[in-house]
């Protein structure tokens, strides 16, 4: 019987140089695995692989040297530990994320919850080519959001609240954009310089800022054979509902317009940036 490599690849089985050996990619969301999952992965790699795993560049785990004949057994064993095969090929790939607000003091958004939500919504969705989501919690950009076809970066929109301000001046220095000035006890924020990093709010001793936690979304990032930094269309997206509409619109644009094996950036370029922006603004405005 001929081996259906396309189906295997869809199920996360990457063909190795070594005949009849596969590196099995696992479904990991937002870079987190439970102890139970890890124990099962260790067991499978020992029993069916070569006793080790590979950590991929996009937060997945692969178990190399899985034998073709063991595939069903391996899948069943992994399922006992809540582990599933991941995906490769022309579809929505692993949703990557930093630890975000739940754990990291710098985080502006709950990256893991968002990764789960996007994974539930789009996992393995068939598309003309690969499509990568990456979520980073803040401007430190540990997760390199602009490398992704669709990158999401957490941000905080601030408005000074005079009633709670003690005029200490900490925010003026915490701001790396030099957007804040303090004069006669009054704070002024140059909104054209603000990059929504939220450092003023996080450093403020009295939390004298009204804040909106939101998203900075970039489109068309690439970091493989071609390199391109994803570009932002809307400076700041205030709520998740809008964010989801925008993600839907971006994926739909890709599904409707891309040629097979064409990455998102090249579809946007070929069809026209203006046309794409129109779709995104439509989704934003609802």
């Amino acid at each position, binding site marked *: 019987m001929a081996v259906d490599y396309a189906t295997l690849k869809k199920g996360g089985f990457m063909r190795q140089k070594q005949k009849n050996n596969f590196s099995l990619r696992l479904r990991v969301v937002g870079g987190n695995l439970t102890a139970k999952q890890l124990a099962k992965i260790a067991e499978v790699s020992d029993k069916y692989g070569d006793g080790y795993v590979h950590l991929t560049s996009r937060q997945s785990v692969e178990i190399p040297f899985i034998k073709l004949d063991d595939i069903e057994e391996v899948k069943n064993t992994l399922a006992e530990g809540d582990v599933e095969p991941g995906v490769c090929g022309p579809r929505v790939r692993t949703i990557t994320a930093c630890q975000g607000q739940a754990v990291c003091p710098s985080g502006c958004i709950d990256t893991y919850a968002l990764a789960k939500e996007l994974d539930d919504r789009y996992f393995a969705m068939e598309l003309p080519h690969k499509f990568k989501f990456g979520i980073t919690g803040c401007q430190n950009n540990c997760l390199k959001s602009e490398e992704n076809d669709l990158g999401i970066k957490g941000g905080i929109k601030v408005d000074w609240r005079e009633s709670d301000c*003690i005029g200490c001046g*900490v925010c003026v*220095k915490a701001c*790396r954009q030099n957007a804040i000035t303090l004069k006669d006890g009054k704070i002024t924020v140059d909104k054209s310089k603000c990059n929504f990093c939220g450092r003023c709010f996080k450093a403020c001793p009295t939390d004298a800022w009204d804040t909106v936690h939101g998203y900075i979304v970039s489109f068309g990032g690439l970091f493989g054979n071609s390199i391109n930094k994803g570009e932002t269309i809307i400076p700041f997206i205030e709520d998740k509902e809008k964010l989801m509409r925008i993600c839907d619109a971006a994926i739909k644009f890709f599904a409707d317009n891309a040629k097979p094996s064409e990455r998102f950036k090249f579809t946007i370029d070929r069809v026209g940036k203006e046309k794409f922006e129109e779709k995104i603004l439509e989704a934003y405005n609802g």
Partner: protein
Amino acid sequence: MADFIIDDIVDITDVVCPTTFVKAKVALEELDDGQILSVKMNDGEPVQNVPRSIKEEGHQILKLIDNEDGTYNLIVKKVGD
């Protein structure tokens, strides 16, 4: 300006991150609840980050004074033990 009485002073201009914060933290640990520490720090990375770290430790920041010589004094009131 002097609406607070400084109980102790620590100079962290001679160390770099992450020792800047550690040195300030140790100085705070030696104070009693409610006492006030003045932390002298350099412009740039220390003044961007140390105030926030001290806030996250639960202490109360009262003022940041620009010494106009490339250093700042952060006035902190110790909260808790």
